[in-house]
């Protein structure tokens, strides 16, 4: 006891030391596991593989990046992935906003709890189960096409599937289907930060806007949307980066074209080209950084 007490007295007089002691484990974790591995990845991407021995040559070189950007197929993969990420992010934002607005502003506490559970419940289920379930739902004779037929919209679906690039033989084997699964999968990550942001917009600002003559649409554009931008930015970082990095959804649902995540998986696994896999994973990091810089310039974080 006496030892403990004198230790406590010692620490009490040295606040800085005490704080450092408390922060050391999380800082070590963050520094070694997170930043360290990220740095290792970055370094790997500047190595190259020896064509004959298939061994990694630990000499810094830009050869791997040259390989990455000189193949049109690789550029296609990057473009395809980014296009999907942008589309999924936009769709998630459009779907999430009304839901989040209702939850933050109009729902009774009970209704809000119900919505929270509704939004999060799917996340408690295995990711793989959901993806494979979606493949069945979207299959040619699946529930989705049955339901579309019930609504008498089969010609519209067939028209969409006949479209170049995004179409395909069925929803399950087209980019439209992949887009649906991605949007479903990441929607909660957009809704939750948006609810948090909208809850922080005082109701009196909305009232004041109407009082000053703004129609509901104007209030949304000039008051609610700008103040919810940080939430929208946070949500879109989730949906954007999750889509950029995912390799399971594109390999289970959708057209056969490769995505960045699949390339990383393949290069570090079967192909054994670790530097190329690393170079591929650096692409999303740079894209996210560019996106954040853009969002910041557009004032997404001014209201924080």
């Amino acid at each position, binding site marked *: 006891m006496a030892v403990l007490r004198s230790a406590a007295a010692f620490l009490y007089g040295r606040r800085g030391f005490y704080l450092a002691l408390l922060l050391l484990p999380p800082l070590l974790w963050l520094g070694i596991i997170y930043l360290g591995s990220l740095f290792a990845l970055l370094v790997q991407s500047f190595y190259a593989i020896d064509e004959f021995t298939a061994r990694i040559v630990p000499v810094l070189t830009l050869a791997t990046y040259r390989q990455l950007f000189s193949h049109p197929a690789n550029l296609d993969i990057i473009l395809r992935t980014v296009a999907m990420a942008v589309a999924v992010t936009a769709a998630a934002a459009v779907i999430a906003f009304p839901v989040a607005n209702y939850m933050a502003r109009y729902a009774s506490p009970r209704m809000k709890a119900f919505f929270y559970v509704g939004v999060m419940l799917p996340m408690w289920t295995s990711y793989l189960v959901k993806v494979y379930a979606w493949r069945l739902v979207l299959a040619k004779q699946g529930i989705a096409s049955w339901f579309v037929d019930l609504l008498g919209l089969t010609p519209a679906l067939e028209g969409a599937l006949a479209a170049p690039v995004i179409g395909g033989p069925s929803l399950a084997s087209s980019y439209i289907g992949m887009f649906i699964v991605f949007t479903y999968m990441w929607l909660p990550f957009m809704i939750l930060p948006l609810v948090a942001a909208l809850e922080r917009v005082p109701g*009196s600002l909305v009232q*004041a806007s109407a*009082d*000053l003559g*703004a*129609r509901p649409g104007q209030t949304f554009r000039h*008051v609610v949307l700008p103040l919810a931008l940080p939430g929208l930015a946070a949500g879109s970082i989730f949906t954007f980066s999750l889509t950029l990095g995912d390799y399971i959804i594109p390999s289970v649902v959708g057209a056969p074209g490769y995505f960045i995540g699949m390339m990383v998986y393949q290069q570090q696994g079967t192909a054994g080209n670790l530097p190329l896999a690393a170079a591929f994973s650096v692409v999303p990091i740079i894209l996210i950084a560019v996106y954040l810089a853009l969002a910041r310039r557009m004032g997404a974080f001014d209201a924080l």
Partner: protein
Amino acid sequence: MTLLGEDVTAVPPFRRNVNTVFQDYALFPHMSVAENVAYGPMVRGAGRDERRRLALEVLELVQLAPLADRAPSQLSGGQKQRVALARALVNRPKVLLLDEPLGALDLRLREEMQIELKAIQQRLGITFVYVTHDQGEALSMADRVAVFRDGRIEQVDTPRGLYVRPRTAFVARFVGSANVVEGELARQLTGSTQAFAIRPEMIEVKPAGEATPAGMLSCAGTLEEVHYHGATSRWHLRVGDAVLTAVRPEGTTATAAPAHGARLVLAFTRESLVPLEDR
């Protein structure tokens, strides 16, 4: 509900010709002071230069033009209040609603703003509907005061009328302080059991045994408590079952303050009694 002859009950807020100054100011945090003030003209489609001109004009009126490009978070409470006022005035409403606008300000600032608000109101000639719990504020600022009780109007009158001729016990007690006398004591004094109010400053207090001036009503009482308020003192006197309060100017009675429990005589004119309606 009608506004200047037009039924506005079902008119949505953005089409009413009424603007509001909110209790918490409700300034838009992502806009500068000038942009806040220009919000009304903006949503009505005014051009950029026109908006800026209108905003600066009104900011001039509330003496905030030099701070036009600050963010609301950089302003003090009183300045935010002025911005909220300017933002509501820029639309030239027919009626301006002020919902306890000075509630969050400290006493000195509140008194300054009262004078300023009154001056602005007279200069612009806009009707101000001013909601307040501060009866002093209501009496000093208003041309007409409506006293509400449980959402219903209890009495509408000029401040002076309200103070001098309160119609009910609620109004008498709510506006200023009043002794409400009813029952046996009322019968003893006036000969009728109808309740009446008398303002504390209308009661004269004399030592027991001194003659009551002709035409004045009087009764005997015991001094229970004296509360000193600087310029005046409030004397609480027991008369039978009731306790009446009298306000005495402190300057003249400072040396002659009677001891607690002293037997005194309360005297007042018949005209100072205000008969109250039964509720």
